[in-house]
């Protein structure tokens, strides 16, 4: 008996178990539909465009974008966000200025302009859609946690 035999035996077993699991109908991205039928595509949500700030779920959360950003170009060539949110443009646009943390390089040295590592806005900031969450969310706000703690101590 050599080691190759054991490995192939193990792989065979794994395949068998996997096959049984699939046949049992494990949840998949096709939503349980078999391969021959086309599942209905979920409706595409609408971007929430109310221009109202949303409450952050925790202090460090990058604020979500309260407006539509269709076709706003953020590339090496151009940054449409900054044409309203950059320091020099906020007077005209009355938009919130990009936070000063975005001027810092990785050594917390404040630069004169937006730091390159913070340039691509929608890496962190995203608009929201008016849709139901796909799965239940058990997130608890930190204020609620604090309240629970103080009331528990009493």
């Amino acid at each position, binding site marked *: 008996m050599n080691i190759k035999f054991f490995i192939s035996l193990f792989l065979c077993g794994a395949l068998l178990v996997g096959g049984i699991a699939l046949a049992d109908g494990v949840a998949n991205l096709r939503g349980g539909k078999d391969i021959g039928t086309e599942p209905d595509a979920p409706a595409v949500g609408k971007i929430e465009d109310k221009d109202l700030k949303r409450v952050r779920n925790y202090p460090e959360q990058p604020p979500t974008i309260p407006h*539509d950003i269709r076709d706003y170009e953020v590339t090496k060539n151009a940054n449409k966000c900054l044409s309203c949110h950059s320091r020099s443009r906020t007077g005209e646009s009355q938009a919130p200025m990009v936070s000063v943390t975005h001027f810092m390089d990785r050594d917390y040295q404040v630069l004169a302009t937006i730091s390159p590592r913070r340039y691509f806005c929608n890496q962190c900031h995203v608009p929201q859609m008016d849709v139901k969450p796909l799965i239940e969310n058990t997130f608890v706000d930190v204020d609620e946690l604090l309240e629970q703690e103080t009331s528990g101590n009493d």
Partner: protein
Amino acid sequence: MTNSISKVWSLLVSIWQRANRPAKYLSIGFLTLGGFVAGVIFWGGFNTALELTNTEEFCISCHEMRDNVFSELQSTIHYSNRSGVRATCPDCHVPHNWTDKIARKMQASKEVYGKIFGTISTREKFLEQRRRLAGHEWERLSANDSLECRNCHSAESMDITAQGSRAATAHQQFLFTGEKTCIDCHKGIAHELPDMTGVPGWK
């Protein structure tokens, strides 16, 4: 050399003498009507040909337009939107008024030169020229107060209560007062932008 020049000269002189002589056999009615019919044909032909060059089909028959600006347009709201009304190339890039249109068409003859000599025959060449070419369009639209935008979007018909509050405020403050024109804020709405370093309003 002098011989050929004098030959051409004498030809020109004989043509002039023929044209200057009163008609010997043709009646005045034939000449008048004939001139009228010929005028209709030439004028109609000219305008038809002009209209033919004023279609999107004509624009994207060249790969320079089809593969660069047209393909970029297709994802934007001026091509794909909820109501299916869309702008074609000449709607934004050619004035609708006749005199302005002819002026623009004469300028555009430079584009024929560009096509023949392959000024933007590859994507790389196009991207290199993009800042200059976009600049021409920005200049044209600021000079004519964004005329081509206003062919469809009139400030008078703009119901700002139906707009987002951001847009409503900006339009009231800058558009209605005439302080700015459409292109001042709405650059790059239909095509990708060039390197915007140094363009006012961008950073």
